[in-house]
């Protein structure tokens, strides 16, 4: 491919190396609670030093999957391998994983340092070593001044740091984070996200995070597994998930997207640009759409065309030529977000398309406003044909 998808955080992609052995392997894992199937024959590989997210709505099985790795639940069938070793039957207190709980689960009767030292004491480490490690952890989470406090005397953000320090103190092979930042306000959450990435990078640990917050998953992860009803729908890097969702479910779950029902009229047509895939042509109630993409569907199939609002250009003037990838409509609503404005444009047949525009300058000659008739256009590689 001539183009690739989105920015890259760091040169780290063991999952593309077929010779790399996974650090954690979920192998055909199924978990049933009575009739309810929480996790359905799921297979997933996670690599060493990876920051991996399980993302999905509540009830999709992501927490169950994590709890099975921690040992709080046993899979109904299938097995979990850590560095090639089968974990089945190993109780939580013998597993080399540590978890940061959603509720933090700090021991209320112990001071901050006692909480952090708890895991180390269970290992029977010598006292001076425990002291040193606790100091180091307190420094890492910047809580040196609070060592003697009880959890009840700390703010939410501080408690969250204690929980993190406690789960990191034993240097687990895998750190499990269950909705770790859910209770924090937005500003603190963003700060903490970057700190988490920093800590993960410094300590060189493998992090597995469970979250329903797609922004959080996008920010921190090397790869994301999007889950739905006990199965993994897509596993990919944040940019791949955002720019190349493999299904309508993923496309709609991550970020904002326009979806148009279409019929496929031409597949693998002419190649307009050298090195790009051939053109796929779609027809959607009078709109003709062309996309440069490899597409497994056949002519006449019903497919969906998906395009992110920020990739749709909005203009008061009609485009110079092209009849394809053009829509005409009336501005029906505007969402002003500060950095972006989102325009809801109603087409003649009543369908609504969203177009986002970055507010690059403070003052414009003639802003687009309610009731304006506008033209929407998008390039050949902006949208995506989804077959499922």
């Amino acid at each position: 491919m001539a183009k690739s998808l989105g920015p890259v955080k760091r040169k780290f992609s063991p999952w593309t190396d077929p010779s790399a052995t996974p650090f954690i392997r979920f192998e055909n894992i199924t978990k049933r609670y009575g009739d309810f199937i929480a996790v359905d024959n799921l297979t997933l590989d996670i690599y060493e030093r990876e920051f991996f997210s399980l993302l999905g709505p509540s009830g999709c099985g992501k927490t169950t999957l994590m709890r099975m790795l921690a040992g709080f639940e046993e899979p109904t069938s299938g097995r979990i391998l850590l560095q090639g070793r089968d974990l089945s039957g190993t109780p939580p207190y013998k597993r080399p994983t540590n978890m940061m709980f959603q509720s933090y689960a700090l021991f209320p009767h112990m001071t901050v340092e006692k909480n952090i030292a708890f895991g180390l004491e269970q290992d029977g480490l010598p006292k001076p070593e425990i002291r040193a490690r606790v100091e180091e952890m307190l420094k890492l989470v910047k809580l040196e001044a609070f060592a003697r406090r009880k959890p009840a005397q700390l703010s939410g953000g501080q408690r969250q740091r204690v929980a993190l320090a406690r789960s990191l103190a034993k240097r687990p092979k895998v750190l499990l984070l269950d909705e770790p930042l859910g209770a924090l306000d937005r500003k603190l959450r963003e700060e903490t996200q970057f700190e988490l990435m920093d800590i993960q990078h410094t300590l060189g640990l493998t992090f597995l995070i469970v979250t329903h917050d797609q922004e959080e998953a996008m920010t921190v992860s090397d790869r994301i597994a999007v889950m739905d009803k006990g199965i993994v729908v897509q596993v990919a890097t944040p940019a791949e998930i955002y720019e190349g969702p493999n299904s309508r479910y993923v496309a709609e779950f991550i970020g904002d997207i326009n979806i148009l029902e279409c019929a496929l009229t031409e597949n693998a047509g002419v190649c307009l640009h050298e090195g790009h895939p051939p053109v796929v042509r779609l027809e959607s109630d009078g709109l003709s759409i062309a996309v440069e993409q490899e597409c497994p569907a056949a002519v006449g199939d019903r497919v969906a065309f998906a395009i992110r609002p920020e990739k749709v250009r909005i203009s008061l003037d009609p485009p110079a030529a092209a009849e394809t990838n053009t829509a005409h409509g009336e501005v029906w609503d505007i969402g002003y977000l500060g950095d972006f404005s989102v325009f809801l444009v109603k087409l003649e047949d009543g369908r609504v398309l969203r177009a986002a525009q970055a507010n690059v300058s403070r003052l414009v000659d003639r802003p687009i406003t309610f009731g304006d008739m506008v033209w929407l256009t998008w390039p050949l590689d902006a949208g995506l044909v989804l077959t499922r």
Partner: protein
Amino acid sequence: MAEIGASSQTNPFRWLVVAVPYLWLIVFFAAPFLIILKISLSDTAIAMPPYTPTFEGFGALGDFLSQLDFDNYQFLTEDPLYFNAYLSSLRIAAISTLLLLLIGYPMALAMARASSTIRPTLMMMVILPFWTSFLIRVYAWIGILKPEGLLTLLLQTIGLLGPDDQVQIFRTDYAVFIGIVYSYLPFMVLPLYAALEKMDGTLLEAASDLGCPPWKAFWKITFPLSLPGVIAGSMICFIPITGEFVIPDLLGGAETLMIGKTLWTEFFGNRDWPLASAVAILLLLALVVPIVIFQNQQQKAG
């Protein structure tokens, strides 16, 4: 703060609400206590009421006060019976409280860990005995424990006892312990259950996650967090058991020495009200110490 003061002055009803509990304490605690205190300083007399002096009005107050003395308290120190009775009461109360903890804690823990669907049923089963008179329940134990009682019958039926042997528990300290533990068990279980039930289960998961096996997690997490319940339950049981009269009287033998029984004998057997009052006052003082500890603990917990 000034506003609250002002409104309490302007609103007499508000004042009344505050006054009611104080009034209650004055009428039903402070006044009887003062009367008992006064009787304990009096001398016994064959009269009606059986002590002198009696309060004859404020005119003879000086004379009245001059007749009060600490003779009864002095007598209590001279006769070892009373000291032994106090000691024996404390011993029985301490052992009973320990037994109650040993039996009540697992019960409360099992209740707190039971699924939420059967918890109300278990709770009901703990409270159910209260629906029958306490006295009847103690009498029922006589029926069970007496030599020709149900226990003997049961043990004979299953062959643990020969047909001519009998269980010799009734009218011993063992019977007193059985009766006390049975009667006070709900008072131990309920505070323990309340403390254990509100404990966050993820704390144990966190402990396990950090490498702590379950039996160790009990002593490191569960037990320390249930301490307020342990202390509340122990105090609620220990204090009344110390002054317990009915159970040792009905189930205990002649050698069962408890201060409640001694007190009853002094009041109704010997009709020595002043001495009995002195015994009661000393019992109260002996119990004030654990009560104060209990209150402090409650304040710390709250």
